[in-house]
């Protein structure tokens, strides 16, 4: 096949967000995946990952649901499952970890699912997957993403370390590397992994406002022209709830919030519309600077 890069196949668990609030994440993800010749194999008949309400209410449910997803993936012959939503990722990974380390929970879950659990597929987050194909990105960049951005990881991608085992818990860098790979600059700031309020996005917007304000304040204070995220909740909290946030700031902020997939998409020269940039509440616009559109001859 062209460019000699083998097609990379990986299991794909969309979860609810990517079909609802964060359709733009899904759209950009699929476009970028295609461009980087990654085949996303959706887990057949997937169910809820057991996040938010699930693990607030009942531990067993919050275990059984994600394990059921992984079992289906395994049945479909997938050895790895990528969950773009940080919350889905965290649920799947946590459940997998607990099954692996507590025979008791394993037995319990096996009982309710009426099956025996063998070797479950590995769980990846979107950054892990992209980092894996980082070397494919560089050569495909047609339009350098020449912005200075704040990479915001939130809490669920890197914590708890023993479950995720991904990147540096306190000082993650994978997203920064990806941004750099498409020509962007990243700021050294302090709220990389702070909480954004997650699912309070809907229920307790005041909390989101308070937490978000801190995040935006630091990012803008350190001259970020955009915030880059890899989590639907981070995105909606900082984008959808910008009003709430700005109420708590003396200096109102208007910098856009992009998914890492959208950033890469832009650099690969994909259409802003198809990347779903139009769906944002805070319009995606950058301070005017000579954006040299690379002429491909």
């Amino acid at each position: 096949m062209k460019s000699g890069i083998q097609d990379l196949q990986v299991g794909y668990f969309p979860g609810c967000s990517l079909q609802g609030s964060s359709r733009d994440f899904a759209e950009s993800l699929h476009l970028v995946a295609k461009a980087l010749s990654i085949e996303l194999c959706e887990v057949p008949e997937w169910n809820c990952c057991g996040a938010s309400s699930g693990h607030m209410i009942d531990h067993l449910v919050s275990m059984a649901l994600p394990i059921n997803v992984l079992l289906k993936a395994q049945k479909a012959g997938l050895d790895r499952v990528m969950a773009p939503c940080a919350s889905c990722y965290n649920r799947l990974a946590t459940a997998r970890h607990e099954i692996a380390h507590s025979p008791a929970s394993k037995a319990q879950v096996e009982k309710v699912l009426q099956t025996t659990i063998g070797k479950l597929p590995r769980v990846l987050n979107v950054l892990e997957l992209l980092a894996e194909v980082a070397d494919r990105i560089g050569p495909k960049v047609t339009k350098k993403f020449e912005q200075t951005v704040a990479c915001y990881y939130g809490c669920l991608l890197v914590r708890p370390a023993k479950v995720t085992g991904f990147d540096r818990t306190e000082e993650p860098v994978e997203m920064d590397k990806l941004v750099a790979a498409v020509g962007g600059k990243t700021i050294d700031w302090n709220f990389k992994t702070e909480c954004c309020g997650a699912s309070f996005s809907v229920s307790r917007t005041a909390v989101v406002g308070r937490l978000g304000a801190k995040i935006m304040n630091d990012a803008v204070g350190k001259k970020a022209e955009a915030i880059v995220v890899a989590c639907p909740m981070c995105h909606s909290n900082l984008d959808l709830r910008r009003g709430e946030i700005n109420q708590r700031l003396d200096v109102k902020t208007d910098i856009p919030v992009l998914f890492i997939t959208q950033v890469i998409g832009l650099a690969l020269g994909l259409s802003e519309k198809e990347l779903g940039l139009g769906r944002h509440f805070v319009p995606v616009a950058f301070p005017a600077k000579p954006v040299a559109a690379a002429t491909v001859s």
Partner: protein
Amino acid sequence: MSRVGVFICHCGENIAGTVDVAAVAKAALDMPGVVHAIEYKYMCSDPGQTMLKDAIRDKRLDGVVVAACSPRMHEPTFRRTAEEGGINPYQCEMANLREHCSWVHEKGEPTTAKAVDLVRIQVEKVKRNHPLKPIRVPITKKALVLGGGIAGIQAALDIANTGSPVLLVEKSPSIGGHMSQLSETFPTLDCSQCILTPRMVEVARHPLITLYTYSELEKLEGFIGNFKATIRKKARKIDEKLCNGCGVCQQKCPVKKIPDQFNEGLSNRAAIYVPFPQAVPNKPVIDLENCTFFKSGKCKACEKLCPTKAIRFDQEDQIEVHDVGAVVLATGYKTMPVSNFSEYGYGKYKDVIDGMKFERLASASGPTGGAIKRPSDGKTPETIVFIACAGSRDRLKGVPYCSKICCMYTAKHAMLYQHKVHGGKATIFYMDIRAAGKNYDEFVRRAVEEDGVKYVRGRVSRVYEDGGQLVVKGVDTLLGAEQVEIRADMVVLATAVQAQDGAEELAQTLHVSYDPYKFFAEAHPKLRPVETNTAGIFLAGACQAPRDIPETVAQASGAAVKVAGLFSQPELTREPIIAVVDRQPPPVFSHCVGCFLCKSACPYQAIEEEPIKNRNGDVLKVVAKVNPGLCQGCGTCVSTCRTKAIDLQGFSNEQVFAELMSI
């Protein structure tokens, strides 16, 4: 026909709880050669040992198997008992029913079956034991102390005061160690240097102590009582005899901007320098990386200006070899490096410092003369935050253990701060307060009650800068688990105590064992805390585990007594576990054919050539001979010998073979 007695220990429930000891005793009675087998709650107890002694007498036993804990634990105990009972101590063997059986297997028939096997193995062995006599070797009554911190200083003085000479080796240019950097010491708040420097001077003056500063141990050969230590004296590039420590050289040295290690980089020093004013010896050393002459071949300012003409640019390292009888390891600790704390901005923000830096700030001899000024701009911090357990008890940081000293020195730091900065606000984030020790908890209470230090029970997630000020983000787990944010002028991390760099290599040079964190391992956690598993090598201070000053000093004195005890004997008796070459009546003389392939296999050059002569003195045959003074009993020669002419006492071919055949 041997008469073996088997004594099975319950070790309370430790063994009896898992192994059916009665069944083991019964099975033992059926083993050929066993004439007596009993079980008892605690064999190592006095009544237990008496039982053993009586049995030896009454049942006329000639061999004893004690089935109890690991021989590494109680073999000496029971061998002594056997001797008191009237048989040769080496007619006693131990079957390890605890560490190797009851503690590692589930209760049940297979476990008991294994216990029986373990007993049988030892029965078969002991039947083939021969009475052995301990080996006598001379002792070199001179001690080597590695490390010139308070541990090494104390040990050296205590040993020297018993009348034995000591070599004190310190890798840096002066003795004193970490303690010389401390400001004041808990729980009494007396000035560290005030109590330490007299000791340092005493060491320098002591007629029996030879000081090797700026020196390192290269090699240690030999064994207890008879070590050979190779010491490298690094070249100071000055003639210590001529130098009078006037200090002109450091004043005149053109290179002045080198971060001063003693002040933890809070001040600068010259390229030729004495680490600190009270240094012992008070002689400078030239830092080759930074000296202009060694970099560019020009300068020599110090040489020109030295009033006593003591500078020696051509001075070389010197190697010295010394015979010593005992070694005390006192190489101390280090604290966790900067790179491990990105979340606290340690190394990123000037005003986030570690405990040792704070000691220098608070020290009257420090760069600020004891005034608490923050590194960035020299302002006095009005609010200061201390973070205890920075790295300690944190698996992610690879340090699951408690660093032990931080609770106390952090309380001390906060207290000193409150004393020096009136109206200042000090907050301490902590997990637990571990203030076990004489007057320790009282000390912490004082910090809280009298000096108004604020203790917040919770972890800090992040320290970041906001508008030029540090913000400490943490949680208070006691008051409604609230998130707390403190805007601080300075942050002090109580960084974890870790094993000294190069500890592992040193342990390997000395053949002492070490734990997963590279702290040197004591021979027994409770009963032999200052000994290592290598006879004649002892431990003092934080090289074994995190320790505070009182503990370190106590342990150093303990180690010193062990050394003194060793030196108090006229000669050394060593385990007779050594190789011997067989001797036969003429005309064979020995099964050894004198090929001497064993010679190069011996790690101790213990194998010598012995010519066997007839009356007229002409050589009939040359055979191998083991020097019992040198042989350490590894047995490598035994398995190299084709004719089986060499055998190892205590682990003879016959014994091992019988053990194997009994399984």
